[in-house]
C-alpha cells in the first residue's frame, strides 16, 4: 500500500510504558484535507496514538510517514515545523501568558515574522473574541474561550494536519457543536484533521474515515458512514445511550 | 554457595582481627581510618538510603562527637567508655534537634539546609574559647590504665573495629525490625505510610538520633586517635565524602556503605597517584551511576521526591 496520496501514514506501531503495552500493531492513514476520527473507550490508547504522532512517546515498533517522509526519528519540533499541529487534550493553553503570546507560540516554528503577523490577523478575524482579549492572561478566560485559543494556536502555523485530542471533553452542547463546525471549516480550507472524540455519533457525521480502538488495537476501521452502521459499533457505542454517557472522560 | 560465603567471611574476620600482628604500621593506620568512616557511612545510609532524607551535614555530627571528647578530656579525668557514651549522646541530641527543627522543610531544600549545618558548626567552634577557636583542642589522651585504654595503634584499631562492628550490627538490627520497615515505608511513599499510621516526624528524628550517635562514637575515637581536634577536620568536604561513600556503595545497603568507606579511604591512600583526584573520580562515578541506572542505585525509591 504505497500510498503517495496519503498525508499521514502510521504503520504498525506499538507503544509501551515500561512493560505495559498501550498500543499494539496499530496503523492509521490520513489523506490530505480529510477528517479522520479516532474512537475508543477510556484507556484504549487514543492519547498514546497522538503522542506517538508527535514523538512524545517512543515507538517500540512501526513507522510514521508524513508527506512520504519518515518522521518517526524526528524531534517534536521538527514534526511541527513540517506541518503537524496539536490541539492537546484538556485544552492546555499557557495560562500565565497573554492570549496573543499563546497564539504567537503557535507559530514558533515559523521563521518569517511578517507571515506570523498575517496569520495572527487571520486567526483574530476568525475568532474576534481573541482579538478583543489579546492582552489578557490565557488562564483567566473561560473554558470555551481557552478551547478557542487552543484551536487558534494550532492554526497559527498554517499546518497541513491538525491532531485534536478530545476537543469536546467537558464542554457544553453548544460549544461542542461549535467545535464540529470549526472542524468542518478547517477541512474546507484544505487542512486535514485527525480527531479523537468521545462523541462518536457527532464525530462520525463529519468524518470521512474512522478508526475504533479497543485496548490498544484497532477493532474497527472504515469510511465513517460504514462504521456508523456497523453492528459491532451499534452495540458498543451507538445504542440508545450517547457515547459520552457510557464512556467516562479519559484521564490521560 | 552459602558455605563458600561463610568461609569468605570467616577468613576475612580472621585477617581483620590479625591485622595488627601482620601488617605494617601504615596499613594499620589506613585500616583504622577506614573503620572510623564505617559508622559515618552507615549512619548516612540509614538517613539517606533507608529513610530517604537527603542530608549532607554528617561531618557536623562527627565533629560534635569529637569536640565533646576533646572538651571532656581536657576538663575531667574521664575514661574512654564514658567519653564514648557522652560523645554519642551529644551527637545524637544534635541529630535529633536538627531533624525536629527541619521536619517541615522539603527534600531538596533540606539538602542545602543540612550543608549549612557544617558551616554553622564551623562558625561555632571557630568563634568559641571552649573549642580552642581556629587552633582546636590538643593533648587529648585517655587516662593510662583505664578500661579500653587506647595507647597503641593496635588498640586504636581494635577500638575502631569494635565501634564499627557495633554500628553495623545496630544498623542491621534496625533494618530488620519494624522500625526499619517503617523507615522504608516513609521513604517509599510518605502518604501511604501516613495512612498506615506511621509517623514521619518521630521516625526521621529517631534515625537522625541513631546516626548522630554513630557519628559521635566515631568522633570520639578520632579525637583520641589524633590526640587533637580542629575545625579543619569537619568541613563540608568530609560530609561530601561520606555522602559519596553511600551513593557509590548503593543507597540502602549496609555492606555497600562499608564498601564505600573502604573504596574512598583505602584506595586513594594506597594508590597515591590517584589520591589527588579521588573526590573527582568519585564524582564521575556518581554521575555515571545516576545516568546509567538511577533506579538501580536508588534501590526501591519510587516516589518523585
Amino acid at each position, binding site marked *: 500500500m504505497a500510498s503517495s496520496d496519503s498525508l499521514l501514514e502510521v504503520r504498525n506501531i506499538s507503544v509501551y510504558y515500561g512493560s505495559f503495552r498501550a498500543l499494539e500493531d496499530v496503523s492509521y492513514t490520513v489523506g490530505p484535507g480529510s477528517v479522520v476520527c479516532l474512537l475508543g473507550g477510556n484507556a484504549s490508547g487514543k492519547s498514546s496514538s497522538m503522542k506517538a504522532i508527535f514523538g512524545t512517546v517512543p515507538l517500540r515498533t512501526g513507522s510514521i510517514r508524513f508527506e512520504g517522509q519518515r518522521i518517526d526519528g524526528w524531534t517534536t519540533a521538527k514534526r511541527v515545523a513540517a506541518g503537524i499541529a496539536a490541539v492537546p487534550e484538556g485544552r492546555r493553553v499557557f495560562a500565565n501568558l497573554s492570549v496573543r503570546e499563546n497564539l504567537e507560540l503557535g507559530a514558533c516554528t515559523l521563521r518569517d515574522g511578517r507571515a506570523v503577523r498575517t496569520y495572527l490577523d487571520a486567526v483574530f478575524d476568525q475568532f474576534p473574541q481573541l482579538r478583543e482579549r489579546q492582552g489578557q492572561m490565557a488562564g483567566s478566560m473561560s473554558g470555551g474561550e481557552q478551547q478557542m485559543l487552543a484551536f487558534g494556536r494550532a492554526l497559527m502555523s498554517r499546518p497541513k494536519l491538525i491532531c485534536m485530542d478530545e476537543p469536546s471533553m467537558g464542554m457544553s452542547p453548544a460549544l461542542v457543536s461549535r467545535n464540529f463546525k470549526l472542524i468542518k471549516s478547517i477541512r474546507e480550507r484544505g487542512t486535514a484533521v485527525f480527531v479523537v472524540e468521545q462523541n462518536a455519533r457527532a464525530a462520525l457525521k463529519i468524518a470521512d474515515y474512522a478508526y475504533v480502538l479497543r485496548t490498544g488495537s484497532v477493532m474497527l476501521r472504515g469510511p465513517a458512514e460504514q462504521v456508523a452502521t456497523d453492528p459491532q459499533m451499534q452495540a458498543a457505542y451507538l445504542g440508545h445511550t450517547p457515547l459520552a454517557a457510557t464512556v467516562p472522560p479519559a484521564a490521560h | 554457595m552459602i558455605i563458600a560465603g561463610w568461609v569468605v567471611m570467616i577468613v576475612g574476620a580472621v585477617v581483620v582481627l590479625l591485622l595488627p600482628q601482620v601488617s605494617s604500621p601504615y596499613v594499620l593506620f589506613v585500616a583504622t581510618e577506614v573503620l572510623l568512616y564505617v559508622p559515618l557511612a552507615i549512619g548516612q545510609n540509614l538517613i539517606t538510603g533507608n529513610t530517604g532524607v537527603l542530608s549532607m551535614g554528617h561531618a557536623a555530627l562527627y565533629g560534635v562527637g569529637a569536640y565533646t571528647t576533646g572538651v571532656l578530656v581536657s576538663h575531667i579525668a574521664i575514661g574512654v567508655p564514658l567519653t564514648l557514651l557522652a560523645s554519642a549522646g551529644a551527637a545524637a541530641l544534635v541529630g535529633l534537634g536538627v531533624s525536629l527543627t527541619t521536619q517541615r*522543610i522539603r527534600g531538596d531544600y533540606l539538602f542545602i539546609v543540612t550543608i549549612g549545618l557544617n558551616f*554553622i558548626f564551623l562558625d561555632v567552634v571557630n568563634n568559641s574559647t571552649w573549642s580552642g577557636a581556629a587552633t582546636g583542642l590538643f593533648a587529648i589522651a585517655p587516662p593510662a590504665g583505664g578500661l579500653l585504654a587506647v595507647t597503641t595503634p593496635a588498640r586504636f584499631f581494635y577500638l575502631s573495629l569494635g565501634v564499627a562492628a557495633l554500628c553495623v550490627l545496630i544498623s542491621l538490627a534496625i533494618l530488620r525490625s519494624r522500625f526499619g520497615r517503617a523507615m522504608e515505608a516513609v521513604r517509599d511513599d510518605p502518604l501511604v505510610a501516613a495512612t498506615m499510621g506511621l509517623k514521619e516526624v518521630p521516625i526521621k528524628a529517631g534515625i537522625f538520633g541513631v546516626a548522630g550517635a554513630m557519628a559521635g562514637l566515631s568522633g570520639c575515637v578520632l579525637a583520641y586517635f589524633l590526640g587533637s581536634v580542629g575545625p579543619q577536620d569537619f568541613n563540608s568536604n568530609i560530609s*561530601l565524602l561520606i555522602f559519596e561513600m553511600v551513593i557509590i556503595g548503593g543507597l540502602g545497603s549496609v555492606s555497600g556503605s562499608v564498601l564505600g568507606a573502604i573504596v574512598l579511604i583505602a584506595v586513594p591512600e594506597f594508590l597515591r597517584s590517584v589520591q589527588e583526584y579521588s573526590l573527582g573520580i568519585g564524582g564521575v562515578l556518581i554521575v555515571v551511576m545516576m545516568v546509567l541506572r538511577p533506579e538501580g542505585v536508588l534501590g526501591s525509591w519510587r516516589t518523585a521526591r
Partner: protein
Amino acid sequence: MITFVQQVINGAAAGSVYALLAVGYNMVYGLLGFINFAHGDLYMFSTFIVLAMVTLHVPFWGAVAVGMVAACFLGMSVERIAYRPLRTANRIAPTVSAVGVALVLENAAQVIWGPATRPFPTPLPQGLFRVDGVVITAMQIVILLTAAAIAVALRVGVYHTSWGRKLRAIRDDLPTAELVGISVNRLVSSVYAVGAALGLISGVLFAAYYNSVYVTMGLTGTLNAFTAAVLGGIGSIGGSFAGGLALGLLQSLGAGYISSGYQNTITFVVLIVVLLLRPNGMFGKLTAARA
C-alpha cells in the same frame, strides 16, 4: 547611623553578587523544578579560568570573554551529560548527579589551581569616595550598576523576546510547550548557558571586589545563591534580585551588629526560618512546586 548606612551599602554590593548567581538557579528551577547543585562550582571554575587567562597576559576583557564562553560551554555540557538523561527520573537522581558534577569541578579546580586563595588583578576601578564618613568604593558602584543593568536586560529578555516567551511557556507547561513545537532541549540548554554566563559575571565581580579567588567559593556561592533564591521566591527571576539584596543586607548588618564570625550561621538561620515559615520562599508562589 553611619555604620548602618555603611553596612547597607556593603550589603547591597555583596547582595548584588549573590543575585547574579541566584538568577542561574532560579531560571533552571522555574523551568525544571530542579536545584542545580553544581552552579556555584561552575561559577568558581569559570572565574578561575579568567584568572588563568589574566595570568597568561591575556588582556582582562579578553580573559572575561574566554571565561564566559567556557562557562556557557561547561554549563551546557553539564546539563547535557549529567542532567538531561535524568529529567524524567526520580527527583533525587538529578540532585545526586549534580553533587557528582560539583565534586568533579571542585576537584579539578583544586588540582589545577591549588587550594590557596589567589589575588585577582583587574583594571576595574579601585578608588573610593567618602560621603559624610560613609565609604563607597568604585567597585561597589560598578557592582550595583552591573546588577541593575543585567536586571533590566533580563526583564526585557524574558518578557519581550521570543526566547523569553518560549521560556515562560516551558515554565508554564512543559509538555504543551513541546507540542507547539518549541525545542525544549535547546531552550533548556540556552538557559544553562545564560545562567552560567551570569554566574561568571558574578564571579568576576566577586573576585574583583574581594580581590580573591578560591576553590571553596564554589560551595559557599551555591549556598548563598540558593538562600537568596529562597528568600526571593524560588523559581522567580525577579525574586533573585530581591533575595540577593535581602541576603546581602542581612549578612552585612549581622556582621556589623552581631558578630562577623557568624556570617554563615546567620545565612542558614535565615534560610531555615524562611523555609519553615514559607516553604516556597519569601515571595514564592505556592504553585512553584512540581512533581
